[in-house]
């Protein structure tokens, strides 16, 4: 998008004399290229080169071909991991929606003081490191953890339950970690619905439930899609939480890639797994790119 000057169009000679400054509203091509050069260098060396090297490497080991991908397809173990990754990402997305929608609604529509309290409860986890929050789930769920201690004290169980390293633990902890990413887009969508619409509907005889079901919910659906998509994409490739809370039986794509890199040192296969994970993620991003607004999460609350 080039915005050209509308006030006092400079003569071509003036432009030639000032090659760096350009017109008043738009910077010249030379200056723009100088300004963006550091970013291009950084992304080229820090992102495109490493990611490209890893992905391409998986096609050239031992020689050009799909050897590494055939390995992936042949083994039922790896296909199980791939399937489990999708299942868990889906479960996390649904759980985040069920828990997140009422919270987003409360943030947007409750009276000022209660909305502020709810907002604080959403922002504090958002601002806190995911590593710390995943660690908290270990503290909660481990054998001598908080949940088992409480249940034993209450006499509801006689010996500690096996909670950690299960799929349930991974889903619960990941839901908690990713919840703010579901909540914020829904909050932005619900807040944008004018209260007058609901009032008009009640004046015409709609009950509270009917107002919600036929006015609020349909109008907030874009936010719901954006939040769910963001959560699903993040859940597909999440490493920290499943690495800490999950065990060998809850291996996901991300933890499998990590294991291939640090334990078996099979970088070509790690590259193939990364290619599959990245392709899955990008498929969703490209298919739904219109719903995905990356800065909504930051612009949503301020």
């Amino acid at each position: 998008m080039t915005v050209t000057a509308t006030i006092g169009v400079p003569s071509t000679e003036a432009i030639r004399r000032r090659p760096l400054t350009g017109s008043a509203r738009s910077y010249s091509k030379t200056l723009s290229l100088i300004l963006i050069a550091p970013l291009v260098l950084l992304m080229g060396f820090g992102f495109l080169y490493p990611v490209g090297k890893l992905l391409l490497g998986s096609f050239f080991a031992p020689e050009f071909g799909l050897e590494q991908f055939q390995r992936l397809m042949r083994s039922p173990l790896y296909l199980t991991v791939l399937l489990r990754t999708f299942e868990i990402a889906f479960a996390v997305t649904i759980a985040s929606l069920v828990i997140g929608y009422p919270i987003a609604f409360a943030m947007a529509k409750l009276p000022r003081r209660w909305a502020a309290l709810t907002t604080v409860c959403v922002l504090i986890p958002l601002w806190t490191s995911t590593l710390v929050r995943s660690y908290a789930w270990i503290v909660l769920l481990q054998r001598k953890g908080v949940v088992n201690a409480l249940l034993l004290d209450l006499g509801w169980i006689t010996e500690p339950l096996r909670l950690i390293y299960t799929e349930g633990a991974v889903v619960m902890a990941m839901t908690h970690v990713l919840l703010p990413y579901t909540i914020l887009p829904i909050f932005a969508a619900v807040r944008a619905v004018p209260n007058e619409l609901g009032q008009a509907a009640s004046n015409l005889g709609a009950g509270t439930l009917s107002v919600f079901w036929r006015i609020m919910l349909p109008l907030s659906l874009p936010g719901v899609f954006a939040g769910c998509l963001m959560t699903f994409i993040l859940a597909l490739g999440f490493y920290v939480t499943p690495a800490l809370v999950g065990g060998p039986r809850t291996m996901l794509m991300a933890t499998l890639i990590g294991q291939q890199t640090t334990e078996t040192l099979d970088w070509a296969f790690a590259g193939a797994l990364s290619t599959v994970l990245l392709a899955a993620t990008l498929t969703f991003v490209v298919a739904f790119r219109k719903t995905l607004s990356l800065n909504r999460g930051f612009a949503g609350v301020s």
Partner: protein
Amino acid sequence: MSPDMDYALAEREAAEIEGRRPKPARHQAMGLRYISGVAMTVGLAALLFFLILPTVLVIPMSLGSADYLEFPPKGITFKWYVRYLTDPDWIAATLFSLKIALATTATATIIGTLAAIALVRGDLPGKAVLQAMTISPMIVPHIVIAVSVFVAFAPLKLSGNFVGFLIAHTMLAVPYVVLTVTASLQRFDTTLELAALNCGAGRSRAFFSVVLPGIAPGVSSGAVFAFLASFDEATVAFFLSGIDGKTITRKMFEDIDFNLTPVVAAVSTIMVLVSLLVMGGLTLFQKHQKATSWN
């Protein structure tokens, strides 16, 4: 509300037939509304509890006096904080993380601000491609970035040292700066800059005295996000850390598995407080700015 109104009408009709005064219809409706209100409050409280409890749980757990994580913690002690502060490994990891985070804040803020200016105001070929490339580290799974950077940087002697981390973390943090500064630039009224140019200011004078103060809120938010994106970052740090160059998050990762004492809870508490102070400070600062600015 229609059910209430129906009820009131029916009640009045019945009362007229029986020749008694109509009973106010409000009691029953109020009772129902009260019960559903209480149920909703309890439900919301439970959801908020789920959101907030795991975040703040580490605080009480870090104060327990037992040698393992005990719930409920018995006796209040700060000995785990003393243990943290006197452990050279923890201090080295903390200082390494702080050094990386502060340097990343500087580089990401400068590179990101310059890029945002070029993307919003500049004359660039292939802007859409450049924008997609800028935000791609937010979309590509961090495990893929982490393994890639590790595999590519290790042969270049860039793993486990400051320069390698600075490059990797700046790459991860720069999209936040570009997004926040872009938003500020799009809101910025360019006629102010034109006015400065008309009044005789040069391009750079107009930028530093007019444009930069105007987009300062976006730049400062971007800087804070960049700091936390580096300081709290765990995935890339896990793979890129070495024996000598180890971040606080990598050290935590290791100790969660092997060290069961509440030291990790104490470190976690410190990290929570750092995040809350930095983000809370930014929020208050921006509220204050909004309240005192003219426009």
